[in-house]
């Protein structure tokens, strides 16, 4: 009964979403207050019903209602509660429901926190978000109903893919979706502004905090995904340039360009139509990400359900949303004139260059991800793009980016003297370069240009960022939160770059054949293989190896990598064991049992790998801090009275 209620709630939510996407628009056109106010009512009602549907599905998972097909496919009796709850978004249908839920949460958040917005703009924004919701709910109801019944109900279900049973992955999709869907707010603001024909600095100010918070979620979500891959895939990598990863990385790159471009538009009123285009692009890439993951057009190591009929639906949806908004852009952006003037050496130029670099990077990822698809479409052959391409592209892009990142925040808006800036940073530049290039020599007694440049870049960003911060602190004791957020995010970038550089240059790995009692030395650590024993979890049996780690004739740790066989599955799964510290990880993964008690295993030494995720967390924090700035709450009201023309805008 409850699953039927859930299904019914979805249908109602669909109907409400249709109302939400049409009525307020008509109201805005006719300036009809009653119709405009429908926007808020509808968005709250929609959240209520989508939430109800979501609760119904979660309930079915918790009580083991295997008469629901989706539940029986993705959970069984022995699955722990946590993974039954996260099982809701473990596969296609449920993750769409999660997407819809998050979209309605964002919609209500916009309705609630933007009481100061002009009603007409608000009505348009909510209507655009309602349209997106219509698309997703229709997708679910017509092609992927999570409440489909299975008759007769089996006694037990099929287990959730064991790979997905990890806390990192349990929370990865919700975070990622918070980011993806969050860009729909920036998108909705952009489209609403185009509809109204009024794009000014206030528009940028309104959409900026929403974009930043969405970006923070996306950053955190991607970091969690990478953390999961590192822990769970068993082979020590943290980023694979897999199409599914790229699908989340492209919106991130464009989103990063967007938050920087929004800064220029808000502060100086420049790059308006460009910013609008970026907002459309960021959300389009989020949708494309869904498309790539869901329809199976690309070969991917991630195993989501594949179904061409769903792909056709998503493609149609993409055409309507992206094509529609780009057509609107082509039609309306002619009226947009950016009035700000700036000189060639100015903050504006620096941010423009930032945008060019980020879009180049996004373009490189896009080509690497989509080219195989295009080649396949013309039947030329099946190809894939190797990892070195992506690595080369990003090393190339990161050098000018880091240089710019250090310099940009020091340059004043409108125009600055390059002599002044150069005078203040040349010493830092020389220090970073010399120390960076010397560090590899100190570590290993060997010069490595690429490693040295990476470290120099990280150092340069750190030093210039701190210098600017202290200079500001000297002038006034308080730093605005928005500025503090930027500092932390930029320091996060430096930390991330340092982590990537060191990990990529100095990681050691070895595939070994080990018999109990044998040992292997790596980076000053000695791995002693003591033997294997049986281990058991709630829903799996495992062979567990005991590996003692010794350093300087002292035992410093013990690793217990496992080979698990989950109940209901026939294949073993590798569960790596990692000894984590701030400066290095020691990592062991068990291969397979060879003859006479020997095991194949892989051991790694990974210095500073933790900095990759810590850096990402700093970036996330920076975003959160920037959004908490009082400016966004207090000044909206003033700005409206200052700048807004009378109703009907």
């Amino acid at each position, binding site marked *: 009964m409850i699953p039927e209620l859930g299904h019914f709630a979805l249908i109602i939510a669909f109907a409400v979403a249709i109302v939400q996407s049409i009525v307020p628009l008509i109201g805005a056109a006719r300036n009809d207050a009653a119709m405009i106010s429908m926007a808020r009512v509808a968005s709250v009602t929609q959240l209520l019903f989508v939430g109800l549907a979501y609760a119904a599905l979660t309930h079915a998972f918790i009580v083991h209602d295997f008469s629901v097909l989706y539940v029986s496919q993705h959970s069984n009796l022995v699955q722990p509660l946590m993974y039954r709850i996260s099982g809701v978004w473990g596969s296609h249908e449920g993750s769409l429901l999660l997407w819809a839920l998050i979209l309605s949460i964002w919609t209500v958040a916009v309705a609630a926190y933007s009481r100061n917005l002009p009603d007409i703009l608000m009505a348009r924004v909510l209507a655009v978000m309602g349209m997106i919701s219509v698309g997703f709910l229709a997708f679910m109801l017509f092609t992927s109903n999570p409440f489909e019944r299975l008759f007769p109900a089996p006694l037990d279900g099929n287990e959730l*893919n064991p*790979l997905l049973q990890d806390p990192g992955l349990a929370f990865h999709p919700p975070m990622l979706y918070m980011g993806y869907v969050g860009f729909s707010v920036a998108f909705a603001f952009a489209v609403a502004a185009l509809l109204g024909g009024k794009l000014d600095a206030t528009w940028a100010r309104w959409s900026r905090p929403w974009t930043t918070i969405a970006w923070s979620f996306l950053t955190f979500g991607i970091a969690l995904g990478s953390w999961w891959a590192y822990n769970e*895939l*068993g082979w020590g990598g943290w980023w694979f340039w897999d199409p599914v990863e790229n699908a989340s990385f492209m919106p991130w790159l464009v989103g990063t360009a967007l938050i920087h471009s929004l800064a220029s538009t808000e502060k100086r009123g420049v790059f308006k139509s460009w910013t609008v285009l970026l907002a459309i692009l960021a959300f389009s890439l989020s949708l494309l990400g869904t498309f790539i993951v869901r329809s*199976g057009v690309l*070969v991917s*190591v*991630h*195993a989501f359900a*594949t*179904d061409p009929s769903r792909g056709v639906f998503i493609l149609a949806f993409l055409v309507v949303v992206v094509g529609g908004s780009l057509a609107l852009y082509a039609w309306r952006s002619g009226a947009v004139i950016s009035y700000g003037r700036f*000189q*060639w050496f100015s903050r504006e*130029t620096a941010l423009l*260059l930032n945008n*060019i670099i980020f879009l*180049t990077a996004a373009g*490189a990822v896009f*080509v*690497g991800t989509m*080219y195989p698809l295009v080649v396949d479409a013309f039947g030329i*052959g*099946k*190809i*894939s*793009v*190797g*990892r*070195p*391409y992506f690595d*080369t*592209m990003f090393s*190339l*892009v990161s050098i*000018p980016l880091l240089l710019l990142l250090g310099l940009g925040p020091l340059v004043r808006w409108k125009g600055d003297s390059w002599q002044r800036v150069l005078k203040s940073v040349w010493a830092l530049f020389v220090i970073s370069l010399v120390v960076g290039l010397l560090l590899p020599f100190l570590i290993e007694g060997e010069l490595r240009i690429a490693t040295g440049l990476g470290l120099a870049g990280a150092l340069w960003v750190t030093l210039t960022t701190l210098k600017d911060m202290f200079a500001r602190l000297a002038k006034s004791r308080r730093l605005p939160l928005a500025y503090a957020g930027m500092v932390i995010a930029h320091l996060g970038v430096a930390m991330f770059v340092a982590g990537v550089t060191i990990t990529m240059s100095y990681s050691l790995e070895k*595939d*070994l*054949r080990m018999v109990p009692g044998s040992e292997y030395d790596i980076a000053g650590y000695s791995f002693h293989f003591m033997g294997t024993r049986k281990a058991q979890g709630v829903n799996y049996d495992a062979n567990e190896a005991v590996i003692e780690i010794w350093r300087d004739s002292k035992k410093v740790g013990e690793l217990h990598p496992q080979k698990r066989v989950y109940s209901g*599955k*026939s*294949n*073993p*799964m*590798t569960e790596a064991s990692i000894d984590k510290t701030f400066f290095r990880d020691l990592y062991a*993964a068990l*291969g*397979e049992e*060879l*003859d006479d008690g020997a095991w*194949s*295993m*892989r051991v790694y030494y990974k210095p500073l790998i933790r900095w990759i995720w810590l850096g990402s967390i700093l970036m996330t924090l920076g975003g959160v801090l920037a959004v908490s700035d009082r400016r966004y709450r207090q000044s909206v009201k003033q700005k409206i009275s200052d700048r807004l023309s009378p109703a009907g805008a």
Partner: protein
Amino acid sequence: MNKRSRRKLLILAVVFGMTIATVLGLTAFEENLLYFYSPTQVKAGEAPDSHSFRVGGLVVAGSVKRSPDSLKVVFDVTDNAESMTIEYTGILPDLFREGQGIVAMGKLQDDGRFVAQEVLAKHDENYMPPEVADALEKGGHVNKQKAMEGSKP
């Protein structure tokens, strides 16, 4: 220097930078394209002998031979028409099994051996790499759709 020529200089610098990035990018792209070949195509000599490529098929039952004192493994893959031998040193993925579809990335040696740098099997046991399904469909009488649905061993 006046404003106009400064602006031109800036644009020129950006265009120059982008050109270099594009050229380097395209070179890297060209070098890192990995083509997929089926065992039948490799047997017919269609695969390159100096470049890395990917090959895939089902692991032939009974063909997996491990070396007793190292991690070297030799096995055959088939598309149900032809089969070829693959040599790999290292740890095989969890889902590597006889009868399972796999994809190997590596190079043909001068003596005709295919030495893999990487062997991939899919994460999900219910799923077959699409290229493998495709190769099987062409090679033998196997239907591709099954790669996408139903339960697999």
